[in-house]
């Protein structure tokens, strides 16, 4: 077996059933090994889409997604996708070819320093110069990607390493390489800290649980619910954690932060005990840090010890997987008496929810973007996998879709990668062919990976792609209006392509909805159509995402209307 053939066999041994990629000179041996192999290869049209499709695959399954790119430009095009996965802690394994070791460092054709370039956007990366290392490195790459706090891992393989003879199996190659010392097991939460944290929770008058993406990664949504219900704690979930608590749950406050709900932001401002679980105190959540939960004792459960005190120093740092940490807290709370003021707090929080719901002008003559999201939510029964781009439509989707379960929302939260929706939806649909997968994208964001319509058509993936078309980079336009004297610099498009005809050019059905009266029927028509469909929803350009906490302001200083 040569390196490429052994690599394909090892991918199968890892349980990989699909890879996303584009061939090229340096990966020709790998593609030769893939030819006829019982491993599905999805040919995308841009390497960034390969990385994002692998990301989407990983987010819906929890298993590492795999992407392949050739040397130089192919590998460079992966960077945005890898950075996306890195910021949101998504397990991805990227395999790149490189020029032969003999010419590395000579500025050979399509040579780039992939190893150096991707170092800061991956959890770990490897340059395999010795064929004997190939299989052990690959096995380690998967282990690193999925263990602890997951993340993307890149393995860069020179062409001659693909072609060199290697052992037939990992077992044969074992012992060649110093094993990764850390086996990826999460530590058990410190009992004393958990006990002290439990006492702080029980004694708190106004506790709030602030859940982040770690809750979904750890599969901890059920324990989270048990904890908040048994202890009577209002809960806010970040963009990355939406779905871990159903939106109709009485203790659910909505999303916190810049476009958070009034209830979530006020609860975070007034709380005396903040339980952060699998969350990292992102600036979009905290607003002005000095006034974020200023009176609160902080309990911070995170598997990554580097997150403790990175932004806010916790009184009770618990280094643990979100599930283990929540289970330990639940157990430690057993038998403790909760502060009697809790009932009053819950009533207060619920009255905030009632008095400050998410609102918009329902009598507008044109279609409002929020109405499209609500209609999609209604028509899908809150059951679809939703994949967004980045911008206003992303925030409206987060706010208004009726989330029910974890891994239902796929969105680039940390990096804010426009163009995420279409490729990530491809990965999600391939991973979960039985699920309804809906793209909610903006016209700006959509055009950043529009070429993937070719992949959708080629793979015949029945994606429902809604473009919230406001003819501009809406979030940029909103910031320019609010904070730059309405000087709309480069944010409004002079023109857009005809998205209906564009879809049709790719062999995909195209629909346009520009009349509010036709919105429900149009959405239904798209969902019922047997195949992929692009729906161009023409919405009001001037609509803003509200509420909004201005940049640098405290959460309580939000603009509501």
């Amino acid at each position, binding site marked *: 077996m040569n390196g490429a053939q052994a690599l394909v066999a090892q991918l199968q041994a890892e349980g990989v059933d699909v890879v996303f990629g584009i061939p090229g000179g340096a990966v020709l041996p790998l593609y030769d090994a893939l030819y006829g192999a019982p491993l599905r290869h999805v040919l995308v049209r841009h390497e960034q889409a390969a990385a994002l499709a692998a990301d989407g695959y990983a987010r819906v399954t929890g298993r590492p997604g795999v992407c392949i790119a050739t040397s130089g430009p192919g590998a460079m095009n992966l960077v945005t996708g890898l950075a996306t996965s890195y910021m949101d802690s998504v397990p991805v394994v990227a395999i790149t070819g490189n020029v032969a070791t003999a010419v590395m460092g000579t500025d050979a054709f399509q040579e780039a320093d992939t*190893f*150096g370039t991707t*170092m*800061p956007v991956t*959890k*770990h*990366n*490897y*340059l395999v*110069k010795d064929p004997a290392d190939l299989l052990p490195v690959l096995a380690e790459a998967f282990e*690193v990607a999925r*263990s*602890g*706090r997951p993340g993307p891992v890149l393995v860069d393989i020179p062409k001659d390493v693909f072609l060199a003879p290697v052992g037939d199996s990992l077992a044969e190659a074992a012992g060649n390489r*110093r094993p*990764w*010392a*850390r*086996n*990826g*097991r*999460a*530590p058990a939460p410190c009992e004393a800290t958990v006990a002290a944290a439990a006492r702080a929770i029980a004694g708190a008058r106004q506790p709030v649980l602030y859940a982040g993406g770690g809750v979904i990664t750890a599969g901890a949504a059920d324990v989270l619910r048990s904890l908040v219900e048994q202890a009577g704690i209002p809960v806010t979930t970040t963009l990355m954690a939406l779905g871990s608590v159903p939106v109709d749950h009485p203790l659910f406050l909505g999303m916190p932060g810049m476009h958070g709900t009034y209830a979530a932001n006020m609860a975070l401002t007034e709380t005396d005990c903040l339980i952060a679980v699998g969350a990292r105190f992102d600036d979009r959540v905290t607003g002005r840090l000095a006034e974020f939960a200023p009176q609160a004792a902080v309990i911070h459960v995170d*598997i*990554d*010890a*580097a997150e*403790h*005190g*990175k932004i806010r*120093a916790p009184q009770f740092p618990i*280094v643990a997987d979100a599930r283990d940490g929540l289970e330990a807290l639940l157990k430690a709370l057993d038998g403790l008496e909760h502060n009697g003021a809790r009932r009053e707090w819950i009533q207060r929080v619920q009255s905030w929810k009632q008095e400050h719901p998410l609102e918009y002008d329902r009598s507008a003559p044109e279609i409002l973007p929020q109405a499209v999201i609500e209609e999609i939510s209604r028509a899908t029964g809150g059951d679809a996998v939703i994949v967004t781009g980045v911008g206003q439509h992303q925030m409206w989707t987060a706010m208004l879709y009726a989330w029910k379960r974890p891994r239902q929302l796929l969105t680039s939260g940390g990096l804010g990668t426009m163009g995420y929706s279409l490729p990530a939806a491809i990965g999600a649909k391939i991973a979960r062919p039985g699920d309804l997968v809906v793209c909610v994208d903006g016209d700006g964001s959509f055009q950043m990976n529009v070429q993937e319509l070719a992949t959708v058509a080629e793979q015949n993936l029945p994606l429902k792609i809604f473009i919230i078309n406001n003819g501009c980079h809406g979030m940029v336009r909103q910031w320019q209006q609010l904070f730059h004297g309405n000087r709309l610099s480069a944010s409004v498009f002079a023109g857009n392509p005809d998205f209906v005809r564009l879809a049709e050019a790719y062999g995909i059905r195209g629909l346009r909805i520009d009349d509010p009266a036709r919105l429900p029927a149009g959405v239904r028509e798209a969902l019922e159509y047997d195949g992929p469909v692009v729906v161009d929803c023409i919405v009001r350009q001037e609509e803003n995402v509200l509420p909004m906490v201005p940049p640098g302001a405290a959460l309580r200083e939000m603009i509501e209307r």
Partner: protein
Amino acid sequence: MPVYYVMVLAREATGLLRRVSGLCENRGYALQSLSVGGIGGGMVRLGLAVDEPRERAERLARQLERLTDVMAVEVAGDHQAVRRELALIKVRPSPGRRSEVLQVAQVFRARVVDASPGTVVLEVTGTADKIDALLAVLQEYDVAEVARGGVVTLRRGPAALGAEPSEPGQPAEQPRRWSAVV
């Protein structure tokens, strides 16, 4: 500002140095000194000196622990670590002042490791302060060239970086164990 020493034990791997220095740069840490050396058994020890408050130094340690190749990290202050730096100093004393340079060398316990008709090369080992002091004195004699090796550190006492605590329950005296995650 106080200097803290971040001691890192890592597995030998391509890119290790770039990873560590890149992390420091990305997270906004200016390294005052960096020393790197293989210590056998496929392991490398790095010593980072940072001019930062203790909590920032500790935060850097937590970030370094996240690196896959890193096995153990520990932070020590001035008094918690034995610190040594090596410097080679080429001096070009004017005719007649050569013996003065040799006297200065003796005071600082520096060794002469090379001499030519116009120059003397001194080797000196010690804390960074001692080397700074020697350099200050030598300014008078025309220092032509200086090479410094970066500070190497070991924690005082019985503890060893990366080793399991021998007696559980004495965490203060023991090195911080690497967290088995991330």
